[in-house]
C-alpha cells in the first residue's frame, strides 16, 4: 500500500516515520486516516523488530514548526456515545502500546508544536528529542476541551516527569517550551533544528543522562503513599479554587491518577478510556468543543496575504485605555506613537503600559532588555507631527462626540491617505462620528475591553460608508495581536455592552426590591460568571454605568429604563474601584477589603429572600431577550458571534457554551414562558418578549438554527 498521510522509509537500518506528509492545513492533526496508516507502519516496524531487521525508529514531521497538534477535534466531536468512544480508543491503544513495546531504540524528533495525541505518541518512544526552535512546545491541552488525554497520556507522562510536573501539565493544559521540557526530563536532548535528523541516530543509542543525587532523593520522596496523598489533596484544592467545581474534567483526571496507582498498563488504560468516554459525552465538554469551533471560525480570514499589515500604531489619548492600547502595540512590536495634551497625561499612559508589562517581567516571560525595548518603543508625543508613520491610529480620548469629531478632523490632516483611523468608543455612535472625516471609508469603531491586556475581545464596528477592506485589515490586525475580533453594526452599546446592560440594570432593580448584594453576586458566581454584577459595576465605575444606562434608554426605549439605584450611588460619590468605594471597599492597590456599609442606607431596609435560581433567571433571561433584538436588528450576523462576544468580552461561563447556546439548551419555549411571567409579575416593559424570540418559538427554531 502507499502512504498518503504519513511517510515510511528505511534508511541505514533506521525506520523513519514522517508525520504531516502531504499536509495542506497549517496544523497537522491525527485523523482516522492517518491513524490507520500509522497502524500499518507500526505493524511493519514490529515485524522488522522481531527479526532484528532494524536498528531503531524515529518519528519526525515533514512540516517545520508543527510536529503534531493532537487529535482532530471534529473526530472527538463526532463520537456518538460512550461505547463509540471506547471502541475508537481501544484501536488507538493497540497502536500506542505497539510503539511502546518495540524492542529497538525509538525516538520522537519534536520540532514545533507537539500537543495532545502528538505528545502521547512521543511518550511511547524511549526518547524524545526536541529542536531548539522557539516554537517547539509540548503539552496535553485536553482538559481545556473538558476531556482528558485518552491515548495513555495520563499513564505515561507521570512515569517520565514525575507526578507533580505531570499533574501540572495535565490539569492546566499548559505548554512546555523545548528548553524547559529538557530541564524537567520530558525531553532527553535538545538538538539543533537543521541537524536534528542527522544527529538523531547517534543520540538514539546514547545512554540516558544519569539522575543526579538530588533527583534520586526527590524521586524517592515523591514515590511514597503519604507524599502522593498530600500532592493529590493540594491539587484538588487548587482545582476547586480555579474551576469552582464547574468543570468535571480536572476532577476526573485527579480521580484517575490517584485510583490508577499501581495498576497494570492494561487495567490503567481501560480506566483512562472509561474516563475519556464519559467526559467526551458530557455537556460541559460538548460546550467547550462548541467554543473551540466558534473561536477557530472567528480566526478565519481568507485573503490575509492581500491585506496590508500594520507595522506602526498610534493612540490618541493616554488614559487607562490609551495606555493599554499603547501596550498592545508595543507588545506586538508595532512601536506606537502615544499622543496627549500634557506630559502628566502621557505619564498616565506610560504607567498603564508599564503595569501591563510588569507581570510578564516578574514571571520572567520577558527579560529586562525586552521590557526596556518594548516600553521605549512607545513614543510619547504632544503633537500630531509624527502621525504619518502610523498605519493604524486608535483614538481613546474621553467619551464626548464633539471632542472626538474635532480630534478626527485634525488627525486627518496629519496621517497618510492609507492609514486606518479608529475610535475606541464604547457608547457613542460610530455612524455619527464618521461624519467628521473626509475619508470615512478608512474609519471604523474598534472597541477594546478594560483591561486591554487581559480581555481578549475586540468589537469592530462598521458604518454606512466603511470600505470592507478597512474591516478586513482590522480583523487581520486583531488576530495578529492575539485578540478575538467580532464585527458588529453601529448601535447603542454595540453588542457586548448592549447585552450586558439589562444584566446590570436588572441587578440594580433586584437590589431595589430588597435582594442583598451577597445573594446577587453569589447567584451570578454560581451560574459560572467570573464575578457578580455588583462587583462588575464597581469595576466599570458607577459613573459609566449611569452614562451608559442613559444612552441605552434613549436608544432602545422603555425596555431599557434605568434603575434609579445607580444614580443614587453616583450621587453619593460611590463610584466603585476608581475611588475605592462602591458596593465594596478597596485599598490603594485596588484590592477588595470587604462590603461598604454606606450602601445600606441606599438600599431598602426590608430584605427580600429570593431563590437563587430565580435571581439567575431575572438576570440572564433579559440578556437572551436583548440578544434576540440584536439579531433582529442585524447588529451581528449570527448567534455564534453573540456567544463569542459574551464569552470573550464578559467571561460568560465557557462550559455553558455561550449565552445563546445556553438559551437553546434551556429551551426557548420555557424561556419565553418565564419572561411572560416576569412581565406580568415584575415589569411589563422590561420583560416584554422580543418579536424575534416569539417568532422563533412559533417556528420551533433555535438561535443556532437561524
Amino acid at each position, binding site marked *: 500500500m502507499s502512504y498518503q498521510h504519513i511517510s515510511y522509509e528505511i534508511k541505514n537500518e533506521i525506520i523513519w516515520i514522517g508525520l504531516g506528509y502531504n499536509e495542506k492545513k497549517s496544523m497537522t492533526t491525527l485523523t482516522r486516516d492517518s491513524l490507520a496508516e500509522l497502524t500499518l507502519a507500526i505493524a511493519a516496524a514490529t515485524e522488522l523488530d522481531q527479526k532484528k531487521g532494524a536498528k531503531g525508529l524515529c518519528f519526525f514531521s515533514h512540516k517545520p514548526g508543527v510536529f503534531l497538534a493532537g487529535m482532530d477535534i471534529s473526530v472527538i466531536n463526532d463520537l456518538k456515545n460512550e461505547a463509540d468512544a471506547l471502541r475508537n480508543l481501544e484501536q488507538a491503544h493497540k497502536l500506542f502500546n505497539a510503539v511502546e513495546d518495540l524492542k529497538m531504540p525509538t525516538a520522537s524528533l519534536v520540532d514545533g508544536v507537539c500537543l495532545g495525541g502528538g505528545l502521547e505518541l512521543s511518550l511511547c518512544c524511549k526518547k524524545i528529542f526536541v529542536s531548539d526552535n522557539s516554537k517547539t512546545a509540548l503539552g496535553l491541552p485536553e482538559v481545556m476541551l473538558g476531556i482528558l488525554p485518552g491515548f495513555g497520556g495520563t499513564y505515561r507522562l507521570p512515569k517520565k516527569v514525575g507526578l507533580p510536573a505531570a499533574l501540572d501539565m495535565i490539569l492546566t493544559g499548559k505548554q512546555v517550551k523545548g528548553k524547559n521540557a529538557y530541564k524537567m526530563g520530558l525531553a532527553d536532548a535538545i538538538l539543533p533544528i537543521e541537524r536534528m535528523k542527522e544527529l538523531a541516530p547517534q543520540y538514539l543509542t546514547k545512554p540516558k543522562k544519569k539522575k543526579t543525587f538530588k533527583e534520586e532523593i526527590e524521586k524517592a520522596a515523591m514515590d511514597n503513599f503519604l507524599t502522593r496523598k498530600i500532592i493529590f489533596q493540594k491539587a484538588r484544592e487548587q482545582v476547586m479554587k480555579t474551576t469552582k467545581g464547574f468543570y468535571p474534567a480536572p476532577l476526573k483526571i485527579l480521580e484517575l491518577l490517584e485510583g490508577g496507582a499501581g495498576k497494570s498498563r492494561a487495567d490503567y488504560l481501560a480506566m483512562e478510556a472509561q474516563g475519556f468516554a464519559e467526559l467526551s459525552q458530557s455537556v460541559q465538554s460538548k460546550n467547550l468543543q462548541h467554543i473551540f469551533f466558534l473561536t477557530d471560525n472567528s480566526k478565519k480570514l481568507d485573503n490575509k496575504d492581500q491585506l496590508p499589515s500594520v507595522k506602526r500604531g498610534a493612540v490618541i489619548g493616554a488614559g487607562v485605555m490609551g495606555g493599554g492600547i499603547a501596550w498592545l502595540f508595543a507588545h506586538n512590536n508595532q*512601536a506606537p*506613537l502615544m499622543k496627549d495634551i500634557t506630559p502628566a497625561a*502621557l505619564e498616565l499612559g506610560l504607567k498603564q503600559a*508599564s503595569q501591563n508589562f510588569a507581570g510578564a517581567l516578574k514571571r520572567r516571560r520577558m527579560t529586562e532588555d525586552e521590557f526596556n*525595548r518594548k516600553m521605549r518603543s512607545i*513614543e510619547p*508625543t504632544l503633537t500630531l*507631527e509624527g502621525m504619518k508613520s502610523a498605519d493604524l491610529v486608535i483614538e481613546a480620548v474621553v467619551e464626548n462626540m464633539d471632542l472626538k469629531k474635532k480630534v478626527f478632523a485634525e488627525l486627518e490632516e496629519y496621517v497618510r491617505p492609507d492609514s486606518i483611523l479608529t475610535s475606541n468608543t464604547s457608547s457613542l455612535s460610530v455612524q455619527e462620528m464618521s461624519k467628521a472625516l473626509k475619508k470615512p471609508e478608512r474609519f471604523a469603531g474598534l472597541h477594546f475591553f478594560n483591561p486591554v491586556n487581559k480581555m481578549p475581545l475586540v468589537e469592530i464596528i462598521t458604518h454606512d460608508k466603511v470600505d470592507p477592506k478597512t474591516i478586513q485589515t482590522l480583523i487581520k490586525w486583531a488576530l495578529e495581536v492575539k485578540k478575538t475580533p467580532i464585527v458588529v453594526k453601529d448601535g447603542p452599546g454595540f453588542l457586548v455592552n448592549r447585552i450586558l446592560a439589562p444584566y446590570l440594570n436588572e441587578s440594580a432593580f433586584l437590589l431595589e426590591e430588597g435582594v442583598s448584594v451577597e445573594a446577587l453576586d453569589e447567584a451570578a458566581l454560581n451560574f459560572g460568571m467570573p464575578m457578580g454584577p455588583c462587583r462588575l459595576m464597581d469595576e466599570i465605575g458607577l459613573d459609566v454605568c449611569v452614562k451608559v444606562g442613559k444612552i441605552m434608554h434613549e436608544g432602545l426605549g422603555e425596555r431599557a429604563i434605568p434603575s434609579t439605584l445607580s444614580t443614587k450611588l453616583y450621587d453619593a460619590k460611590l463610584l466603585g474601584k476608581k475611588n475605592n468605594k462602591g458596593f465594596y471597599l478597596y485599598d490603594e492597590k485596588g484590592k477588595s477589603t470587604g462590603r461598604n456599609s454606606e450602601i445600606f442606607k441606599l438600599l431598602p431596609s426590608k430584605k427580600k429572600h429570593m431563590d437563587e435560581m430565580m435571581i439567575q433567571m431575572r438576570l440572564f433571561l433579559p440578556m437572551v431577550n436583548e440578544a434576540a433584538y440584536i439579531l433582529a436588528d442585524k447588529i451581528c450576523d449570527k448567534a455564534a458571534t453573540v456567544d463569542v462576544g459574551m464569552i470573550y468580552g464578559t467571561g460568560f461561563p465557557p462550559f455553558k457554551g455561550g449565552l445563546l447556546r445556553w438559551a437553546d439548551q434551556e429551551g426557548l419555549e420555557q424561556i419565553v414562558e418565564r419572561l411572560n411571567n416576569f412581565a406580568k409579575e415584575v415589569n411589563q416593559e422590561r420583560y416584554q418578549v422580543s418579536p424575534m424570540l416569539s417568532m422563533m418559538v412559533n417556528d420551533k427554531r433555535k438561535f443556532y438554527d437561524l
Partner: protein
Amino acid sequence: MKPVYLVDGKRTPCVKSGAELKEIASPYLGHYLVRHLMDKHGLPSDQIDEVIVGCTGAPAKYPNVGRIIALEAGLHKKTSGYSVHRNCASGMEALSQGFDKIGSGRSHLIFAGGVENMSQMPLMFNKDMTEMFINLMKAKSPAAKLKIIAGFRPHFLAPVIAIEQGLTDPFCGKNMGATAETLARELGISRKEQDEFANRSHHLAAAATKAGKFREEILPITAGYKLDKMIADDIGFRENSTVEGLGKLKPYFEKETGTVTVANSCPLTDGGSMWLLASEEAVKKYNLEPMAKMIDYHFHGLEPERMGLGPVLAIHGLLKRAGLKLSDIDLFELNEAFAAQVLGCLKVMADKNLSARWGIDETIGTIPLDRLNVNGGGIALGHPVGSTGSRLVVTLAHELKRQKKKYGLASLCIGGGQGGAVIIENLKV
C-alpha cells in the same frame, strides 16, 4: 564640497549624573531622538545612509552605540552605524564626519550626534583582583584554588574608577581640573572672575528654562525604574546661586591654593543629542525644511596640560577656512568645561601677545558677552561628554532661529589637548 544641511536637531534634557536618567543605557539616550526625527519628517526607514554617534564611555554591553541606536530606532537593518570617540568633542566629530560624507556626495541622509551616560561609567576590579580571578580559573585542584584564595588581601577590593581615569590625561598625567588651574594661574584669572562667570551660566540657564526657550530643542524622555516618568527639563542648574554662595566652596583640585571648584566647572551629566543631516538632493526629494546649513568645522591640537585653550586654535583655524571674521558671527556656544578655561580663551583671543604663544600672529577678536552662551552653558547644563559637541550645535541652531540671526559658532576644548569648532548658517531667518 556640496552643501550640507542641518535639517533638525533635538536633545535629551541634560540631567546631572546619578539622578533621573541614571538607569538609561546610552543607546536609549539617542534612539528615541532618531525615531522622533524620522516620524516628524516622514522619512522611510530604509533611506538613512549612516548613523554616527559620539560616545566616550562606550558601555561594555554596547561597544558600538551607533549601530545599536540605528536598530533600536527602527531604522532598516541595512543602515550602517558606528561610534566615534574624540573625547569631549565626540558629538562634534560625528557631525564633522557626516559633513564630509554628505559634502563629498557619497551620502544623502545621516544621523549624527552623541550620547553619554556618565552615571553608568563602571567601577572595575584592580589588577591584583583580576589576576586572582584568572589564576582561580586556571587552578585545577581544590587545594590549588584554596591556595590562591588564601593570597587574597583587602586592597584587592579597591576599585579602579573608570571616570576618574578617563578625566586624567594619560600623557601629561594631569587631571582635567588641574589643567584649568594651570590656565587660571598662568593667565591670571581670579577665583571671583570664575565664580561670576559660573553664576551667570546658572542664572541664564534658569531663565531660559523658565521662559520655555528649551521646549523646542528638548524632546522629553521616558525615564524611571518602571519607565513611566517623563523628563522634559534640564536638571542640575542652580537657580538660586549667588557669587557669594559660590565663593564659599572649597577648591576641588588644588585644595589649599586653587581656584577651581565644583561649582565653577561643569558637573558630570547624562544626556544625548542628535542631528538629521541631509544633502540638497535629499532635501528636495523629501520636501525637508532645514533649520541650518553647516558651513565647516575645524579641529586643532595643543599641549595636553593646556587643553582648555583648544577653542582658540580651533576657532582661529575655522574662521580662516570659512573666510569669516569673528565679528561676522552672531552667536557663540563655547562649552563651559571650566569657567577658568572659557575666560582664558576669551583673554587669549583678545590679546595678540598671548595668541603669539600658540603661533597665532593676529588678534582674533573679542566675543561680546551678549552673544556668548546666552542660555547658559556647561557649568549649568552639564557636559555629557559624548553628546556636548552636537548638543552645542542643537542649542545654537535653535537660538539662531529664535533671534533670526545668520551665523553661529560652536566650539569646545577637548581633553588630551585639542579644540574643535563648527560654524552654521541659520536658514530660518
